[in-house]
């Protein structure tokens, strides 16, 4: 796939996302002209782009969609749920067509094509045929796009676009060659006739060979639309004068064009005749009319701008002019944005992160050697270096950070579709969309989130009648929230539905033998049972959820991201799933501690403070931290480390998910940047260990899974702590 196609696909997907968002908005506020325009523009841009890359099947499909949108925008057809649904389906179909284009196939497969035709049929039957006032073309655009409403007489007999181009003197110096633009123009259609004008070129002595003096009058046959033609000249837009007349423009437009151009009217007229834009007879009529109007208009101050004239005469579709204005603005904005953004391949970034990871390890090695050598200067130099390495690491990781908002926005559509299907009225509230997290995490969190959202809609939120009966607003509410919390990201999926049925879950768990009969469980423990494999309390199985596969998969997926998921529920008020994820999968700031002969790493974000273990703590599992009860756990006990106990032990106070605990270790070795190496499959069920890392000395240190340890410390005395396998 060549570069322009790649860009087209990427940009079209962005346009589609925007279009989808706008369509959803349209449902809420039908008739909002801004939204309608935004939708139309998206479709229009995609069609234009498809024309540029010569992807006919997208052009053909989008054209009909665009027709419908145009009618919608002109108020000829009204917005209703059905139409929005069809249009959403159309947007999905365009997405599928983009896949086809991306995969390099020349045409969509038969079934996809059939789907597309069915959609177009629905549009055609339901909205396009008969109802519109205009009897214009809604056939696919083999012939013409720039449908200009005829205004009676004076229409110029030509099916071609007319393009007048005058390049600025500086274009060549800026490395842009008019020739390339014109050649590129031929990818949109056929240049029927081209006239080169060199009138602006001064005499030989004054002629600057590096300046451009050329202008062109082009008679251009194309099914592309005006925006697409204009786009060809985007890069030189500021540097050239561009006039485009759609096919079948009025004679007056040509006259206006002639007036707007710098050359002598008579000469221009001849050229227009030569390129075939006008016939001699038409020219004579036009020039005569022009003189007449000029005579009449002498008292008036200035001729109105071309755009105004065109709209006044209702010759050019108003949107043509409007689109041009919007386009210009967009182009400006886009140029600015492009200057600030570069697209690069994700694997290049990954390679960079890998290298930075190795650099961090190597840097740690150097630090260690420097510290051992005892050379003050060397130590100083390495500390400067490690600070720089740290900055590099941070910026490298920053490169991978993306906002979660895009992922959240996908759910607008899901919520709409699913709630429609179930006949529920549900609004989605998104907050914290600007929260950033690692790209790889974002990619992997989509599926679990989708599952939770669907579950919430299907099981969480009750049908409207039940809600009304319970005295709740009929419209259900689903909220997605993201925020940062001590080095991890917290994502919440909350609904205001009926909450989890504690009794039912407990009963089911007993039936399945997950819990020994007669055990009393805390609410929390009961709710967490839903993450057990094969657990479903749904009475009826829908095609959305309830089959009992899912929540355990959700949990596993999240765990594979080194995160965890918790559920909290209030009967009658709703359910809240909280997902905690590490910000990044690759590198963390660690705090190195020693127990026995081995080193362990505690993620620094979770360390609150360090203190010496008070001798009176003895064998108890709690100590008094400034009046607070702090459970602690000994690494020596936990990992059954033998050997001499040191005289003094230290406590690292850690905090995660609002809970505090102490980890008792032999020595504190200080901060340490570390690259996480995941543990192999063999060690998957190890508790309390989250991964491993390589120290500067080449030794392996284990990374502690602080949340698991805290849990262990806090629940050690509870007999059924085993249920809370983390």
């Amino acid at each position, binding site marked *: 796939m060549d570069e322009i196609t790649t860009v087209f696909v990427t940009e079209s997907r962005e346009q589609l996302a925007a279009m989808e968002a706008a369509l959803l908005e349209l449902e809420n506020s039908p008739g909002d002209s801004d939204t309608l325009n935004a939708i139309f523009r998206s479709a229009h841009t995609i069609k234009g782009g498809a024309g540029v890359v010569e992807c006919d099947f997208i052009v053909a499909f989008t054209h009909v969609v665009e027709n419908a949108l145009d009618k919608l925008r002109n108020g000829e057809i009204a917005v209703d749920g059905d139409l929005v649904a069809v249009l959403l389906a159309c947007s999905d179909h365009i997405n599928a067509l983009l896949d086809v284009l991306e995969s390099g196939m020349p045409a969509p497969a038969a079934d996809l094509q059939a789907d597309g035709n069915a959609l177009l049929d629905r549009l055609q039957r339901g909205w396009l045929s008969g109802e519109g006032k205009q009897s214009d073309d809604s056939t696919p655009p083999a012939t013409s796009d720039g449908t200009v409403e005829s205004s009676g007489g004076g229409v110029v007999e030509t099916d071609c676009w007319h393009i007048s181009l005058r390049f600025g003197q500086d274009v*060549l110096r800026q490395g842009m060659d008019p*020739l390339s633009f014109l050649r590129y123009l031929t990818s949109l259609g056929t240049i029927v006739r081209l006239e*080169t004008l*060199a009138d602006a*070129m001064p005499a030989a002595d004054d*002629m600057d*060979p*590096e300046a451009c003096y*050329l202008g062109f009058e082009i008679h251009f046959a194309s099914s592309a639309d005006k925006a697409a033609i204009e786009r060809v000249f985007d890069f030189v837009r500021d540097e050239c004068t561009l006039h485009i007349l759609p096919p079948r423009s009025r004679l007056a437009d040509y006259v206006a064009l002639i007036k707007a151009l710098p050359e002598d009217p008579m000469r221009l007229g001849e050229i227009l005749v030569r390129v075939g834009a006008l016939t001699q007879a038409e020219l004579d009529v036009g020039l005569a009319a022009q003189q007449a109007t000029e005579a009449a208009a002498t008292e008036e101050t200035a001729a109105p701008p071309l755009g105004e004239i065109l709209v006044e005469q209702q010759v050019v579709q108003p949107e043509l002019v409007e689109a041009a204005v919007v386009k210009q603005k967009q182009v400006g904005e886009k140029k600015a944005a492009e200057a600030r953004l570069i697209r690069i391949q994700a694997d290049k970034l990954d390679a960079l992160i890998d290298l930075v990871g190795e650099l961090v390890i190597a840097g740690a090695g150097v630090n260690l050697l420097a510290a051992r050598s005892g050379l003050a200067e060397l130590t100083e130099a390495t500390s400067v270096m490690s600070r720089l390495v740290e900055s590099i690491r941070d910026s490298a990781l920053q490169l991978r950070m993306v906002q979660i908002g895009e992922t959240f926005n996908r759910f607008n559509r899901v919520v709409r579709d699913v709630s429609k299907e179930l006949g529920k009225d549900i609004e989605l509230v998104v907050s914290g969309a600007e929260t950033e997290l690692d790209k790889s995490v974002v990619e992997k969190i989509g599926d679990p989130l989708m599952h939770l959202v669907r579950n919430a809609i299907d099981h969480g939120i009750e049908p409207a009648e039940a809600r009304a009966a319970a005295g709740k607003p009929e419209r259900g509410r689903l909220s997605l929230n993201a925020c940062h919390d001590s080095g991890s990201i917290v994502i919440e999926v909350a609904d205001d539905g009926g909450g989890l049925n504690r009794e039912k879950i407990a009963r089911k768990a007993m039936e399945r033998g997950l819990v020994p009969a007669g055990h009393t469980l805390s609410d929390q423990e009961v709710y967490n049972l839903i993450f057990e494999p094969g657990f479903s309390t749904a009475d009826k199985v829908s095609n959305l959820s309830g089959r009992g596969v899912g929540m355990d998969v959700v949990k596993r997926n999240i765990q594979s991201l080194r995160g965890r998921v918790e559920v909290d529920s209030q009967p009658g008020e709703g359910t809240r799933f909280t997902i905690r994820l590490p910000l990044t999968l690759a590198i963390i700031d660690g705090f190195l501690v020693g127990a026995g002969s081995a080193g362990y790493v505690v993620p620094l974000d979770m360390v609150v403070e360090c203190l010496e273990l008070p001798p009176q703590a003895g064998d108890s599992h709690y100590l008094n931290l400034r009046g607070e009860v702090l459970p602690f756990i000994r690494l020596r006990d936990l990992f059954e480390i033998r050997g001499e106990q040191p005289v003094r032990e230290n406590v690292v106070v850690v905090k995660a998910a609002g809970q505090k605990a102490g980890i008792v270790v032999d020595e504190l070795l200080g901060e340490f940047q570390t690259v996480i190496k995941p543990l192999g499959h063999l060690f998957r069920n190890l508790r309390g260990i989250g991964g491993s890392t390589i120290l500067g000395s080449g030794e392996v240190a284990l990374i502690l899974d602080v949340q698991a340890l805290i849990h262990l410390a806090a629940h050690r005395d509870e007999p059924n702590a085993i249920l809370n396998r983390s």
Partner: protein
Amino acid sequence: MSKATTGCQRLAIVDDMTIYNAAAQKQTLIEALCGCDELELDLSTVGEIDTAGFQLLILVKREARRLGKQARIVAHSPVVRETVDFFNMAADFGDPMLIPAQEG
């Protein structure tokens, strides 16, 4: 094609007629035109021509006309021929163009 006319000069341009050479080539062309009555341009080895180079051809043609002289392109390289065609200036220039057999 040898010319008997005394004032006839043949100039072969071998470099690319692009903006990078435009300044130097303008000088060469205008000087050559001043030094003779009839200028024959051999562009058969021009490997590349852009708008800047093409403008020079227009300039030479126009200067020649203004001074009552002749400037003819007697040999086109394929790119030159294609460009002149693209800009639709073949008729304006009025030079015979040799169309290779396989294309004709």
